[in-house]
């Protein structure tokens, strides 16, 4: 009979099509992850024999005088996601208005910071923010906002502020694109109906716009929290994690241990803390996400 043959063809296709995905998951994600955990129990140099250390790496990191400095800077840097969301909302809502001309052009301009390599935008801001010859300090002084240039790279607070602001400037278009795509999918008739009921601008936003983009916003925020904490090309370039450890977000510290000190065991130990921190931070959002999905299914 036919059905039996079709089922087997179906199964065959499923297996063949899933093979690359499974190979990826096993060999590029989970095996390396397990291998990394194994490495974190060692003193593991780039070249040469690893030495068993047990839990010493973990103890050392927890006891290190820079432990809380690193955690604090990671928390500070996480606020970049909120800034990105704010910026994305403003730009997406503005661009979605009917009366705005040349929408595609503006959208193309706004995507620029995100499309370019982060080290490119990082280099641009290193130039713009240079204390002696940068344009930002020049105008801040000219307008009397500051009396002398800020040497932000050697100041703990300013260094944190700079990497957070520059990251926000660079990555907001990701959320902007997602939110804008959702906004454009809202039927015009919803707004007309809201108008008939006499809803003002704020009420229209709250009752029509917001419910429509909430799901996409939540997804975007979760993804961005993870990526902001992991994609650290740019802050690493801006400050190298310094002064001291002041801007060594957990992932920068991982990179510092691996790339600069060649201490791969310690690097992965810090990486484990990054995983824990990330899931702690996205936990509440994931819960909301789950609630939304179950609500949608009902």
């Amino acid at each position, binding site marked *: 009979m036919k059905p039996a043959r079709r089922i087997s063809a179906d199964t065959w296709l499923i297996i063949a099509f899933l093979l690359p995905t499974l190979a990826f*998951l096993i060999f590029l994600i989970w095996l390396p*992850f397990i291998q990394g955990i194994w*490495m974190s129990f060692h003193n593991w140099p780039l*070249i040469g024999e690893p030495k068993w250390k047990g839990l010493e790496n973990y103890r050392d990191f927890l006891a290190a005088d820079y432990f809380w400095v690193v955690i604090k800077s990671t928390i500070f840097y996480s606020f970049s996601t909120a800034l990105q969301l704010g910026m994305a909302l403003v730009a997406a809502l503005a661009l979605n208005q009917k*009366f705005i001309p040349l929408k595609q052009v503006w959208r193309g301009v706004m995507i620029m910071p995100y499309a370019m390599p982060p080290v490119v935008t990082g280099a641009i801001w290193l130039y713009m923010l240079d204390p002696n010859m940068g344009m930002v300090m020049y105008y801040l002084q000219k307008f009397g906002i500051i009396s002398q240039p800020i040497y932000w790279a050697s100041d703990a607070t300013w260094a944190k502020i700079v990497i957070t602001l520059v990251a926000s400037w660079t990555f907001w278009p990701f959320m902007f694109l997602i939110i804008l795509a959702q906004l454009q999918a809202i039927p015009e008739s919803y707004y007309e109906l809201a108008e008939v009921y006499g809803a003002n601008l704020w009420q229209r936003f709250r009752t029509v716009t917001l419910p429509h983009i909430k799901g996409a916003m939540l997804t975007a925020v979760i993804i961005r929290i993870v990526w902001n904490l992991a994609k650290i090309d740019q802050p690493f*370039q801006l400050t190298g994690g310094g002064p001291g450890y002041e801007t060594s977000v957990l992932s920068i510290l991982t990179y510092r241990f*691996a*790339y600069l000190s060649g201490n791969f065991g310690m690097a992965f130990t810090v990486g484990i803390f990054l995983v824990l921190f990330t899931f702690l931070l996205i936990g509440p959002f994931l819960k909301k996400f789950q609630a939304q999905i179950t609500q949608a299914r009902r």
Partner: protein
Amino acid sequence: MAVTTDRSTLAQKILAYGGLLFALLIVLVPYSYVALSAFKPPGEIFEVKWLPDEWSLDAWRYAIESVEFHKYILNSFFAGLGAAAIALIIAVPGGYIFGRKKFKGKEPLFYIIILALLFPFVLLIVPLTISWIKVGLYDTMFGLWLSYQVFIIPFGLWILRGFFEELPASLEECAMVYGCTQFQAFYRVMLPLAKPVVVSLLFLSFLIGWNDFLFSNMLTTGEGPRTASVIIYIMAVGGERVEWEVLMVLTLIAGIPPVVLYILAQRQLMKTFR
């Protein structure tokens, strides 16, 4: 189009134009300053002014002749191309199955993929570096291509699954009624319909290969396939004296291609994220 009454209030207009202007200014001011700085002669780069007194192509010449930036740009190009090709092979079939087929263990398997999406992938650089040295992938282009997949595939599977899922339910069956095999139904019917999301995948994965610094820097040496990002990083923080006018030329050369690609892919991208 018929006459539509513009019901937007004045407040709405002020807010919208204000927001638009703000967003455009914070993007355009730095970029225009940088674009102009790339034409300043070395002596003028230390003064803050918009237009150079004397327009100069010295920095551009230096970028090609001394830095040999075109070599690294070519490396970046291949890095992106390979990353996109491998992503296509892995994510398109996988995303199709997750979006269209039912099989045992589908839900838990997809949760594992989502977990990978929420995973701070940067820490995988640690074991991958060691493994790549062992298996001979260190300092090779192929090694880079594989490592980029860590960033690409989880997100790629996520958007592909979503897109395939939303296509009408009985498409494959119809195709098979007309004599297509399972594979043909995928290849001839589903794949063309999924064009926006496949283009988005290609665009995003090319961008990751082109833009990446962390893996490219860690997994290559001076003799290997260094990409443009690594050179920009080294030029910006490496030396005692930074040649800013040259660096600004490099940022323009490495920064403009992704923007052009975005403009080409934007319609497909908007369809993907809807």
